[in-house]
């Protein structure tokens, strides 16, 4: 049973057209993360939520935003996608702060045309 679910698995958007990726979890975990993973590179943390407390990484572009309307759902909004934003986007959760195991979704592969 999938516990961290990302939709869609594949997303195609046009240059400059806003796009939203979604993540849901059935684990009731407090912490949710968004990572960007480009081809043959390590996942890079964009931001994370501890409950409703949003934590942005210093080098995350302003083009990337996130929303967490409730415990189960978290969204990644890319306001004006550029060609360089084409990547796999991974959502992950952990039970609470200081609980170091993260559970990952299968990812959404974003293509920008």
């Amino acid at each position, binding site marked *: 049973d999938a516990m*961290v679910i990302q939709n869609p698995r594949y997303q195609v958007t046009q240059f400059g057209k806003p796009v939203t990726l979604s993540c849901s979890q059935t684990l009731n975990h407090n*912490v949710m993360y968004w990572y960007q993973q480009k081809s*043959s*590179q*390590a*996942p890079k*943390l964009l931001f*994370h939520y*501890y409950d409703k407390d949003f*934590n942005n990484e210093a080098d995350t572009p302003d083009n990337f935003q996130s929303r967490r309307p409730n415990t189960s759902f978290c969204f990644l909004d890319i306001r004006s996608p550029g060609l360089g934003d084409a990547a796999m986007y*991974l959502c*992950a959760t*952990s039970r609470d*702060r*200081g609980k*170091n*195991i*993260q559970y*990952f*979704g*299968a*990812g959404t592969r974003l293509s920008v045309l």
Partner: protein
Amino acid sequence: AQTVTQSQPEMSVQEAETVTLSCTYDTSENNYYLFWYKQPPSRQMILVIRQEAYKQQNATENRFSVNFQKAAKSFSLKISDSQLGDTAMYFCAFMTRRDDKIIFGKGTRLHILP
């Protein structure tokens, strides 16, 4: 700043053989966790094994074991009796105890050959 280095971009071994994946890291912290994550093709990343830095004993999980050398800042993964299902990208990763962020290495793509 913490860094994680995996020096083997790609490896191939025959089924049933033993393989060791290398990882080194750099940190000034004393309390931290180390992980190996597995990312199979088109599937989600899953935790393989975890090591707490204050524990001297090397972690093991069935066919997977680590060689943790704290002084050398080395954390290698050994896969015994490798199986076709072990084919995946393997990421070495690091997290401090006071933080919620994982820092990943660039990964090692492992192919298990029939």
